[in-house]
């Protein structure tokens, strides 16, 4: 396996044929969902899930470099607002606005992470938290442009059909592309350098890894994708308001990642799917619904420390232990 660490070079590609097929199957399954579920509301849920998956995955990518970006929801908001303002007030095409939103978010991310790169783990988390709150309040205080607490409504949409199916397929494609890119970044040497910095910035700088360069790179990439997600959100949801990008939402994003599993690329994907959709299933409970999410949180955090992705591993080990036990009984 040692050969895989630096780069998945040629031979590993062959090695991963089976998983590749597996991924293909999953993608096909996801592509078929609109045929299975006709209700637009369910598609609506799917689409939101896809958006949050991009956000959570990009957040985890930043976290691999040992930085906890507590401004991430604010960046989602930044993307959303930029896209909304451009497409509504400036009359740009929503598609263009989407890209610009991602780029703006990335630029802001780069701009702040140069000064912030001086700050280590906890202080970085806190200063980014403050930046997030400040950014959001700043957006909120822009009066007519952003509509304050009440947010922006009737944002131009990507398609002018009432149907949600095109959104689903486009967003599914965007999600898959984003995840693929993030995955590649993580699997190649860039990802390993980030992890090295996370483990010891002293040691990594002593072998010539530029700490600042890679931390900024991580934030830039993360913010680009979260900005993209924000733009998607705005131009799909047609209404946005600051309250959905506040500190609580950031913490929920962290939860999406942590519940899924921080150490695994699939973590945020699963965490988001579970934590976003299961409470929706119980939405009949009205004001008692939040308790369902709380129950999930406690169950997972106490039962599976490494998140939901560790369940198969746990099962496997349990099974193996049984086998061993049986053998010992025989002998």
């Amino acid at each position: 396996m040692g050969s895989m660490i630096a780069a998945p070079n040629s031979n590993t590609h062959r090695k991963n044929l089976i998983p590749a097929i597996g991924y293909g199957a999953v993608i096909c399954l996801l592509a078929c969902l609109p045929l299975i579920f006709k209700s637009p509301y369910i598609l609506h849920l799917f689409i939101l899930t896809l958006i949050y998956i991009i956000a959570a995955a990009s957040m985890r990518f930043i976290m691999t470099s040992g930085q906890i970006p507590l401004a991430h929801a604010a960046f989602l908001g930044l993307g959303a607002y930029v896209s909304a303002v451009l497409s509504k007030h400036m009359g740009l095409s929503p598609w263009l606005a989407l890209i610009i939103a991602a780029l703006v978010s990335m630029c802001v991310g780069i701009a702040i992470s140069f000064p912030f790169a001086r700050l280590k783990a906890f202080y970085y988390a806190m200063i980014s938290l403050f930046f997030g709150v400040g950014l959001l309040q700043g957006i909120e205080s822009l009066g007519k442009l952003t509509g304050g607490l009440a947010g922006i409504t009737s944002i131009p949409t990507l398609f002018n059909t009432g149907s949600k199916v095109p959104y689903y397929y486009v967003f599914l494609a965007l999600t898959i592309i984003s995840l693929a890119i993030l995955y590649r970044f993580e699997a190649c040497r860039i990802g390993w350098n980030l992890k090295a910095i996370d483990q010891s910035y002293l040691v990594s700088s002593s072998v010539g890894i530029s700490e600042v360069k890679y931390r900024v790179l991580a934030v830039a990439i993360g913010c680009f994708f979260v900005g993209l997600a924000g733009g998607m959100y705005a131009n799909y949801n047609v209404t946005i308001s600051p309250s959905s990008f506040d500190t609580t939402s950031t913490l929920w994003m962290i939860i999406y990642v942590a519940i899924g599993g921080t150490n695994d690329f699939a973590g945020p994907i699963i965490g988001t799917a579970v934590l976003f959709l299961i409470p929706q299933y119980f939405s009949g409970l009205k004001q008692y619904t939040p308790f369902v999410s709380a129950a999930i949180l406690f169950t997972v955090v106490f039962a599976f420390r490494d998140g939901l992705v560790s369940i198969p591993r746990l099962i496997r080990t349990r099974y193996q232990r049984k086998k061993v036990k049986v053998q010992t009984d025989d002998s």
Partner: protein
Amino acid sequence: MPEATILLIIASIVNALVLSSMYILLALGFTFLFNIMGILNFAHGAIYMIGAYICFFLATAVGINQWLAMLIAVAAVGLFGIFMERFAFRPFFGNINQIIVVCIGIITVLENGVSVSQGFIVQVTPPFVQGIFRVGIISISWERVVIFLIGISLLILVLLFINKTKQGLQMRAVAQDLEGAVLQGINVHFVSALACVIACALAALAGSLMGSYLSLTPYMGQDIMIKVLEILVLGGIGSINGVLFAGLIVGTLDAVLPIMVSGTATQALMMLIIIVILLFKPQGLFGKEVRG
């Protein structure tokens, strides 16, 4: 200078002092917890809220004297602190993500629990003291004066506790160097439990006081939480003086900024100021310089 302006200035000073004393009370406990166990108790605000509600409930529904109610609330929430230390923090020592998960779980339960159980009544704890205190053109409600005095005296008590008593010294030892403290034979779990109790008790106390001075909502903790974090970071980790000083700064900003700019812009300005300070002093105002 016109009288209106003078009044404005005086009022701002008073507000600054009262707010600061509350913020410092809250932040002290939180900082304890962070220094000693390295735990960011994101549920601190929710605990402040629950303290306020317990006091309110005892003072109105049960109908006992609100001072007594406050004491009971403090005690009850203090016990809850032990529970949290044992079941929420100790198992996840040093893993910030899992701590966040647990804290959000606790917040969700507490806030929605209160929101569901209370129903819609506008809730205010009966005032601890009545009347208005007048000197010349200055006029302050006794309530604020009392809150301020209680805040200050508690600060002094806590500082004495940290600096004079055995447990206090142990806390500082643990905060400075965990392994060393363990080698010294200090029972870390006891110390951290103690810290948790103090943190929660102070939060509950602040909550009860503010509950009469403002009115109660299940979400009153959320904004306070950010303030507490600001104070912790601004003051610099591991420094009590830092907390006092940062508390004063944040309180003053909160009392003065709204007069200058309108509504939501205040928070943005506040954050800007704090970020700038942090960039010039990355370790906070009173934080120690790290040796390479």
